[in-house]
């Protein structure tokens, strides 16, 4: 009975959007060095890897699944890229191979989850370790840094004199695609239905397993694209690139109001969550907060972001029932 008042309650993704604006304004006003163009381009450039993987991760979590192996897939892609470059292949040949590798990584996760019916949390913890291990076997402890300049320049360059990195352009295109797929296509509609009630989705003729397999595969593809971007952006391909990035991605997505149990959330909220986390990490770096402490903050945010929407819902419910009694 309280539902119609709930729909009028504040939506969590709006809360996160407002929070992002508040944090940005506060940082401009109070944090030294935050507002200059160089820092802003660092902020966005460092946040882009999180944002890129957050796109497919949002769809995956909405469907009720999760992929913890994304950072390892990114690392593996970078490592293979470095190894093949050392072998003398051209970068134009290497990139498609790496992307294909990402597809395979995602496919393996997806097949283990859909064919064997294993929980994705367990499967991808396993492949998190496995993919990273393979990366180390492939490249050892080498760091490959001598990629062609025009690629390095693209990955690190800015648009004209602005603070925006060039890589923002392809990201915006991918973001638009993801928004349309999740919010305006039958595929997206089915994704929400699967996450909210998988059995009812199956009874409605939705091909649940096929859809999940596609989502895992695309996640692998985007993770490897991120790995390539990472290696070029930082001009360093190492087996341990992007270690721990999955924590940031999942924290950001959940912070953006994507329900961990599936079936709820918007991509707008998820991306707001990503940049909120990115801005906080940037501010902490400017304030000389150590990397370890930043991970603690990310972890705490992760817990809060699972709690936050629930508390918001409880508060809305309580307020609604107070109005009623």
């Amino acid at each position: 009975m309280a539902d119609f008042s709930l729909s009028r309650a504040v939506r969590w993704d709006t809360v996160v959007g407002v929070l992002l604006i508040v944090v940005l304004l506060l940082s401009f006003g109070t944090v030294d060095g935050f507002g200059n163009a160089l820092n802003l381009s660092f902020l966005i450039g460092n946040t882009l890897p999180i944002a890129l993987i957050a796109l497919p991760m949002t769809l995956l979590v909405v469907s009720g699944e999760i992929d913890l192996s994304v950072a390892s897939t990114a690392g593996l892609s970078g490592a293979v890229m470095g190894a093949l470059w050392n072998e003398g292949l051209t970068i134009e040949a290497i990139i498609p191979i790496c992307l294909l590798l990402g597809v395979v990584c995602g496919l393996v996760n997806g097949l283990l989850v859909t064919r064997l019916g294993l929980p994705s949390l367990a499967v991808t913890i396993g492949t998190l370790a496995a993919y990273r291990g393979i990366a180390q076997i492939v490249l050892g402890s080498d760091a490959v840094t001598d990629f062609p300049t025009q690629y390095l320049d693209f990955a690190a360059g800015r648009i004209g004199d602005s603070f925006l990195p060039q890589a923002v352009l392809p990201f915006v295109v991918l973001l638009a695609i993801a928004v349309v797929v999740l919010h305006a296509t039958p595929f997206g509609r089915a994704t929400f239905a699967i996450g909210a009630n998988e059995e009812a989705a199956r009874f409605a003729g939705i091909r649940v397993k096929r859809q999940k397999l596609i989502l895992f595969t695309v996640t692998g593809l985007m993770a490897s694209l991120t790995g390539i971007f990472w290696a070029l952006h930082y001009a360093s391909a190492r087996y341990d690139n992007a270690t721990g990035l999955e924590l940031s991605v999942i924290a950001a997505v959940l912070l953006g109001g994507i329900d961990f149990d599936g079936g709820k959330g918007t991509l707008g909220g998820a991306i707001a969550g990503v940049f909120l986390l990115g801005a906080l990490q940037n501010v902490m770096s400017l304030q000389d907060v150590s990397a370890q402490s930043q991970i603690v903050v990310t972890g705490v945010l992760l817990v809060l972001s699972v709690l936050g929407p629930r508390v918001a819902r409880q508060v809305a419910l309580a307020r609604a029932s107070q109005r009623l009694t």
Partner: protein
Amino acid sequence: MTHPSDPGPAPVLALKDISKSFGAVRALRDVSLELFPGEVHALAGENGAGKSTLIKTLAGVHRPDAGQVLLDGTPVVFHGPGDARDAGIAVIYQEPTLFPDLSIAENIFMGRQPRRALGRIDHKATHSATAALMRRLGVELDPDRPARGLSIADQQIVEIAKALSFDARVLIMDEPTAALTGSEVARLFGVVRTLREQGAAVLFISHRLEEIFQICQRVTTLRDGAWIASEPVEGMTEDDLVRRMVGRDLDELYPKQDVTAGEVALSVRRLTREGVFTDVSFEVRHGEIVGLAGLVGAGRTEVARAVFGIDRWDAGEVEVDGTILTNGAPSTAMAAGLALVPEDRRAQGLVMDMSIERNIGLTGLRTTVRAGFMDRGAERSRSLDWAVKLQVKYARIADTVNTLSGGNQQKVVLAKWLATGPRVLIVDEPTRGIDVGTKAEVHRLLSELAADGVAVLMISSDLPEILGMADRVLVMHEGRLAAEIPRSEATEETVMAAATGRAAA
């Protein structure tokens, strides 16, 4: 407490002019009710009439906006369910929740077991107190038996015993018989009569009207949150009661039209799923309603699931209008013109957190599409169309389905499937747990669909429904088709004989 002016016995519990609103919805309007000791009082009304709200008000869950609750003639205010329980009011729900690993006795005396020295639990005293309660109810249940594995009927008995252990004087039974078999209902009624003779007041809710006439002395009817009548059951007919509930004469409950059957629409040939059902063959023709009867667990639902592609079959073949279906693929079954309205609407039929519009839209993800994108206009008009055609009662089409009553939820599931324009419609328990008015509407709808040439396969545990609606009755027994009975020969006796394996096919 009696007043000198009172002519008869005083009501133990009374509601006086109770009103209760949720937002803009007025769930109860000036409802009054008196419960006397030693009576079984029926509460009748369609889904959404306000029965649940009334029960929750009596049980202290809701506080009324206006009006009084009188206990022995004294106004009381319940601040929570605990207050109502302490006042001697107990609610027995349809599906009790016991601790499965504890014994019956421990469940009854949970948290207040008799103690011995040093605070140790006195198992002997707990046991004998439970045995005494069971004797009082005239039921044989071993107090030391764990609750796990008890039938729902036995679990209800445990709940009733627990209520008695709290010295309950008022028992509210919310659809206690919905999940019981015939003999279990008879035993429950025995217990209810015993309680009545011991002076308890029982408020009894059931969708099965015949039960009201069997066990109740008086009946109070609610409609749209308003009190309609409180009157003795004696002298009333079922038709009278239905008229009070729905406010008009109910068209026939089983409006079966005579239809000449057409071509074969659904053909199931030697279908087998190992360990579940074996060698099942039957046909349903266009225009026919075929009933599929059998005891719970006979394999009816399982056959329907396999035919639609939810589960895979191990052998056999299914054909819909000339198309051989792919094993385990609901999407191809849908494309061939098959629709399945599943048994469990909350778990299988609906996404409860989604809107009415989108729930109906889920079966249209292939059709309400333009250039690969959702055509929201088409989706909305498709959903609105069918919601209106089926007379779903809702505030806004964008409301989530969990705001609807059970009967209206079932209509949304039907709308969702009728919107696909099926040539073959399988309905599994289409009217379970919905009120008599909606039930008649669903039956009329099925009859009209058949008249339009749709082949209908209707699974039901409601025998009068099968007999009233089906052109032919298929009966399953232990995973096999036991009999096929034409409408002219179908009676409760012939169907039950086949369902229990007493007659050969």
